[in-house]
């Protein structure tokens, strides 16, 4: 019941904002309504801790003989950290809009709150059917929002490509369902068939842009900082939650090392591009790819807690950085708490990140983690030249930092309480090596040209080179198109009926050949 309370707080507030937008477009208390709803939702998620674990099941689809798993949600030690992160992110987005020159009620506020509600539903989904439905709702929301905000044929095409990769990921989850049923299991997270585990990892990897490596998000959108951040991070968290449900036993396949290698490549590539990105918003897709890849590596090493740790870091650490739009030296320093959160040192947010069996891959993982943290330090300590809060009203100067501090504080809190990965010592030696390497990279960044930020237009050329690698797939597609055209032309041509009858005779002969 508490899950529905939290989600309703988001959805009802979003609805109230829409009504206000239509009836009183200039109402000054709309922001208070939005922040009030967001705050209550965050508090309600903390109240979950008193009752966890608990379930929420909606009325089952009928007939029950065909729909074995009802739509259901579960709050437990894996879903709660995601839920609290998403709630905090949503509230922070609403708190930080005060820094904008003219902040009035708009559809993006309602959209942010609705996304928060959907995000909580996604991370608490208790079976793949529920997750599929919420994924689709998120995908359709993102598709419509992006198509409304981008301009030009190429950018529109990118939005559709991004939608398509996520839809393919959803279909792969569906295929994992079919494989599980064929193996005699019902498809819920508690009884996943051993053959389905890898499909789940690939499905999440596809949605996140890691397996195979691609950029699922268009960076040309006009809704970049507030709503854009919610869209990116909540969508990524909703995909990551699937990985936290993959049992270690279902990953014992010959393909696992291969997928881990792909994950490592994506993590290092993402970390490298993140380190050299000209600014944090341009580098955001690489931040998501890198952290998602680290999550996938955790899942493949049999450590669902690591998935949750990296997922929360993606939302909380990334959210704090991407929402910081003004220059404030104290806030920039506060952001550096994120370094602790990403370090996987004992009692940090990501302390449980490397509890699985990584074996031969440990050095590569350390490199990827160090690149990511070094990039974060560089973006957090960005140079001046941005707007400051000094010219704004006094209450704005208090509210804005409170939003950022909320995310920063939550990073520390999650290292200690509330979920199965809290209070962990973890792989401390690995964490120390990663931290030392990070210091080295931070020291070297201003001194070596190769580590310096790349210019924005280089980013696109890199993507183009990556796109070229996928041109091969289009060649196969065009070949198939030519073959199908030949078949269709034959069957629809003048002699089509004779060819058709010939096929029928062959078909009947094949079917009846066993009868004497």
């Amino acid at each position, binding site marked *: 019941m508490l899950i529905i309370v939290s989600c309703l707080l988001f959805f009802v507030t979003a609805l109230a904002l829409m009504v206000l937008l239509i009836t009183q477009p200039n109402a000054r208390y709309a922001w208070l309504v939005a922040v009030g709803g967001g705050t209550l939702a965050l508090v309600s998620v903390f109240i979950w801790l008193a009752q966890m674990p608990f379930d929420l099941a909606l009325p089952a689809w*009928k007939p029950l003989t065909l729909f074995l798993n009802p739509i259901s949600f579960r709050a437990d030690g894996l879903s709660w950290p995601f839920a609290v992160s998403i709630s905090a992110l949503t509230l922070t987005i609403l708190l930080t809009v005060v820094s904008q020159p003219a902040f009035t009620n708009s559809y993006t506020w309602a959209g942010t709150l609705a996304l928060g509600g959907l995000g909580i539903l996604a991370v608490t989904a208790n079976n793949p059917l529920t997750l599929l*439905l919420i994924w689709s709702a998120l995908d359709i929301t993102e598709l419509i929002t992006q198509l409304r905000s981008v301009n030009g044929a190429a950018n529109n095409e990118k939005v559709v490509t991004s939608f398509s990769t996520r839809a393919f990921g959803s279909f792969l989850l569906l295929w994992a369902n079919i494989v599980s049923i064929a193996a005699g299991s019902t498809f819920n997270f508690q009884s996943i068939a051993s053959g389905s585990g890898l499909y789940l990892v690939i499905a999440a990897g596809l949605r996140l842009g890691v397996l195979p490596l691609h950029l699922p998000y268009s960076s040309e959108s006009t809704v970049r900082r507030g709503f854009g951040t919610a869209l990116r991070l909540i969508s990524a968290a909703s995909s990551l939650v699937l990985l936290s449900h993959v049992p270690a036993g279902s990953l014992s396949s010959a393909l696992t090392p291969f997928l881990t290698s792909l994950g490592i490549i994506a993590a290092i590539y993402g970390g490298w591009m993140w380190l050299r990105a000209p600014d944090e918003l341009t580098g955001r897709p690489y931040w998501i790819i890198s952290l998602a890849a680290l999550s996938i590596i955790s899942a493949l090493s049999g450590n669902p807690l690591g998935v949750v740790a990296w997922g929360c870091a993606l939302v909380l650490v990334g959210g704090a950085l991407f929402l910081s739009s003004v220059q404030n030296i104290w806030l920039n320093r506060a952001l550096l708490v994120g370094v602790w959160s990403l370090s996987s040192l004992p009692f940090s947010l990501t302390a449980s990140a490397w509890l699985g069996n990584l074996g031969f891959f440990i050095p590569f993982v350390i490199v990827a983690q160090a690149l990511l943290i070094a990039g974060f330090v560089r973006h957090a300590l960005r140079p001046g030249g941005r707007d400051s809060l000094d010219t704004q009203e006094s209450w704005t100067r208090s509210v804005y930092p409170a939003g950022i501090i909320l995310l920063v504080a939550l990073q520390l809190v999650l290292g200690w309480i509330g979920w199965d990965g809290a209070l962990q010592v973890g792989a401390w030696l690995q964490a120390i090596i990663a931290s030392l390497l990070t210091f080295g990279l931070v020291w070297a960044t201003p001194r070596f040209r190769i580590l310096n930020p790349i210019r924005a237009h280089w980013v696109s050329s890199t993507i183009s080179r990556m796109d070229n690698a996928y041109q091969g797939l289009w060649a196969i597609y065009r070949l198939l198109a030519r073959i199908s055209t030949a078949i269709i032309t034959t069957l629809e041509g003048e002699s089509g009926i004779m060819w058709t009858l010939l096929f029928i005779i062959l078909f009947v002969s094949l079917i009846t050949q066993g009868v004497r």
Partner: protein
Amino acid sequence: MSAPILWILVPFATGVLILLFLREERAPVTGGVVAAILSLTALIIPIDIAQLLGPVSFKISSTIQFFGRSFALHTADGPLLAIIYGLAALWFFGTQASGTKNRFVSIGLMIVALLTASIAVEPFLFAALLLEMAAMLVIPLLVLPYQKPGRGVVRFLIYQTLAMPFILFSGWMLAGVEASPGDLGTTTQAGTMLGLGFAFLLGVFPLYNWIPMLMEEASPYVTGFLLWALPTFTVIFALGFLDRYTWLRTSPQLSNAIIFAGVFMVASGGIFASLQRHLGRIMGYAAIAETGLLILAMSLKSTEVVNVTFLLLVPRGLELAVWALALSIIKRKAYSLRFSEVQGLARSYPIAVAALIFAHLSVAGFPLLAGFPARIALWQELAGQSLTISFWAFAGLFGLLIAAIRTLAVFVMAEENKPWELNESWVQGVMLGLGVIGLFILGTFPQILQLFIANLPTLFDHLGQ
């Protein structure tokens, strides 16, 4: 009053009256209202059970005799009639928005009446004749007066006509099979005849090539109606055969033939759809894949055959109606419906494009949309039987998803700074909007269909019991 008069004669006569006396503009509302009333009546008033309306007692009797043949609609047929006339009403109400003329509503009502007669007639083999008559009535809708019929129309007529003798001939042979069930030769011949008859009727691979041809050369709305109506009643007719003859259900050869036919249709329909560059042809191949899913549902070795089949049938009607309506609206702007002509149209016709994409995604089994629950139910049964068959069926749906994404990409690739504008009329907007809302409702709460389909398994004595 008897049920066959109410649900066969009344709509047929209404169709004739509309054709002869009513102006084209008033036909959609009249036809739609009549179909909706028939649907509600079927849902509310049970057949063959006495009802008390104040002091008046009345009963809709189930049977009438006509030229020595009987037409019977029983209590269990009520929900089925409600579905059929409900969906027909949807098509008729959409006529005005689609801009379809040429007596669509009047002839459409006659077609639905004839097809309803096909499920009511006894001996049931006469259904083949009624299906053929319905197919012939479609021709005036497909070919405009003084226009030379296209190759798709001719081929459609040839295949539908070839189906009839095969089914009638198999009926004659089936009597022999019932007399001596051990005679394998006669059984095989009868099964082959029957299979060929249904292969022609349902447009099994490769007999479906008239469908994309027709989608290219005729009105999308009329062809969509045809692709909804004929397979729906043919499937019910086929279920009747399977229910009546035990050897048909137990024959491994026939069972294999049904499975292969179904999976060939889904896989080839989906894959061909993903490689097309014409919106009409894509819809044609998607309809083929959907029919393949229906055939796969009929092949299930499970007590859930009827449930799964009807779970597929109801959303199919809504999906095709929304898709055909959206396509008709787009065709008025871009006549050829080729990708090159519809590029960037999402900004000029956003509602039609969104409706088309959602209907397409629904057919592909995208979650949240009407087609999804039925496909989940099908996988639940099919995966237990064969993972290979499931894979090829899944590949077909994946092909449909690729086709949907390609179509979407073409629609949204508008030139720089092209503004968003609404060019649909309010009627079109409302019809499409309601259709899309329906797709989402059926996809999220499929249990509401239970009102209609919960008792449908009782239509069949052996299937699904």
